[in-house]
């Protein structure tokens, strides 16, 4: 477990490069900062400043080494490293509202972008004209798309939206890939086909994640619930109403273990073993050292002078993060067996957590 503080500003999103020696973060403004690991410290090596709106999503494709960023200025750029400088290429999104989230597909030949225009843009590179084009998925999304995740087969796309629904679409682009075979989610998959629409009582769907095999889909909702749909079992939905504040990010650690984190500032572990059995396992956090040290007389008087009290009231939270966690990301291990994952939060910290299976 290691914590690194990137300053006082909240970290809205982050992405790792292939060997985890570099991290791209956005300190809640219009810039993306890329840091290089040197020992235990991180040093800033690049600043990407093309956007004019707040950055809402960053994703780094490990194999092709391209970064895609999207912002509230309705634009997205794909950055490539040329002569040690990141050069942006504008993506023609054709949206008239802010972009909210972006994800490279597993084979990195396309990426999906969600926006407040109630549209998902699936973007791919067209060689003849040397630009990035987008195809839109509109129906039946009725409100802002808040989160996206690709299925391992590079075709299916899960989207969580603020119309309280979680949906699975087909993102098949016939110009760049082969026709997909049938999966547990369905067999006919033309572009934009909706294969699942599942709602909750009334919470925005903050984050979605496919399991490593792609047979189940977990999502977290603002009504403090975590839900899992199982395609292998007739798409039955299992719901767990938690007693915590709403969760904002969810990640599969292996086929059955799920980690989710949010406004409670620490990651929680859940386990899904089949329809009807979604259980809460526990917190993943470093136990705070008990700091009840005997106070010196000087401490007493200092407290009395500054705060008019003699008690040593520690106002820090007991968790490692001091503010809500906004995003979780795999650091080590592949999707089917994650051994380390990272979390960034509104406190400006990035924590890398270890996980034993």
């Amino acid at each position: 477990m290691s914590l690194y503080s990137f300053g006082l500003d909240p970290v809205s999103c982050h992405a790792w490069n292939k060997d985890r020696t570099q991290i791209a973060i956005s300190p809640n403004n219009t810039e993306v900062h890329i840091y290089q690991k040197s020992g235990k410290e991180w040093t800033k090596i690049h600043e990407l400043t093309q956007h004019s709106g707040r950055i809402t999503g960053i994703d780094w494709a490990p194999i092709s080494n391209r970064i895609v960023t999207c912002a509230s200025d309705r634009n997205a750029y794909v950055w490539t490293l040329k002569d040690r400088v990141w050069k942006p290429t504008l993506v023609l999104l054709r949206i008239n509202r802010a972009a909210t989230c972006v994800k490279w597909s597993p084979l990195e030949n396309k990426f999906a972008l969600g926006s407040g225009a109630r549209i998902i843009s699936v973007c791919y590179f067209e060689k003849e004209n040397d630009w990035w084009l987008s195809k839109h998925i509109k129906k039946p999304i009725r409100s802002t798309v808040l989160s996206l995740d690709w299925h391992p087969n590079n075709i299916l796309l899960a989207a969580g939206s603020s119309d309280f629904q979680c949906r699975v679409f087909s993102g098949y682009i016939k110009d760049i890939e082969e026709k997909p075979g049938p999966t547990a989610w369905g067999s006919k998959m033309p572009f934009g086909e909706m294969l699942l629409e599942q709602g909750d009582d009334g919470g925005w769907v903050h984050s979605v994640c496919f399991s490593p095999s792609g047979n189940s889909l977990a999502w977290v909702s603002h009504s403090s619930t975590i839900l899992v749909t199982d395609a292998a079992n007739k798409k039955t939905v299992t719901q767990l109403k938690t007693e915590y504040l709403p969760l904002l990010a969810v990640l599969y650690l292996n086929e059955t273990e799920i980690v989710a984190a949010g406004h409670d500032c620490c990651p929680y572990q859940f386990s899904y073993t089949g329809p009807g059995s979604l259980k809460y396992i526990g917190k993943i956090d470093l136990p705070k050292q008990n700091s009840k040290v005997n106070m010196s007389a000087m401490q007493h008087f200092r407290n009395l002078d500054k705060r008019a009290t003699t008690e040593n009231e520690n106002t820090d939270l007991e968790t490692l993060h001091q503010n809500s966690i906004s995003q979780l990301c795999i650091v080590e291990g592949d999707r089917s067996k994650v051994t380390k994952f990272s979390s960034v939060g509104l406190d400006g910290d990035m924590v890398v957590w270890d996980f034993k299976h």
Partner: protein
Amino acid sequence: MSKATTNVDFRKVDVDQYEEEKYEDDAVVDDGVTGPNDAEVQALIAKGRLADALQTVLSTPPIASKNPAVKDKAAQVVMKVLTAFKAADIDGAIKNLDQNKLDVLMKYIYRGFEMSSEGNGAQLLVWHDKVFAVTGLGSIVRVLTDRRRV
């Protein structure tokens, strides 16, 4: 000319109705549940079977109804049950409720705060405290986010 410029009726037009892609909140379908039977619940209270009265009112809440009068009536009945409880019996009654009923109970507690008749306040706060101890912050968040209002 000066007369025409003082007409400000245009400010009262609801421009949102003309937007083509307006979000229609239609997810809550009225399933005909009209709330607990008042007479039955009164009888249970009179007999002192308060835990049973609580189970009854929480199993048929008119959350899907679009009729505010139905909801008000149901809320009144629930308030009668909640205020009839003695502080010591509340824990026992809560133990027998499942997660869904606890969420509905929390919704009614907040509805009770809204209706704020004198005398109810203290009793409702005791209820709130006890339910919160079992369900935590999650049920309060669900009171705020659940579109099927009590």
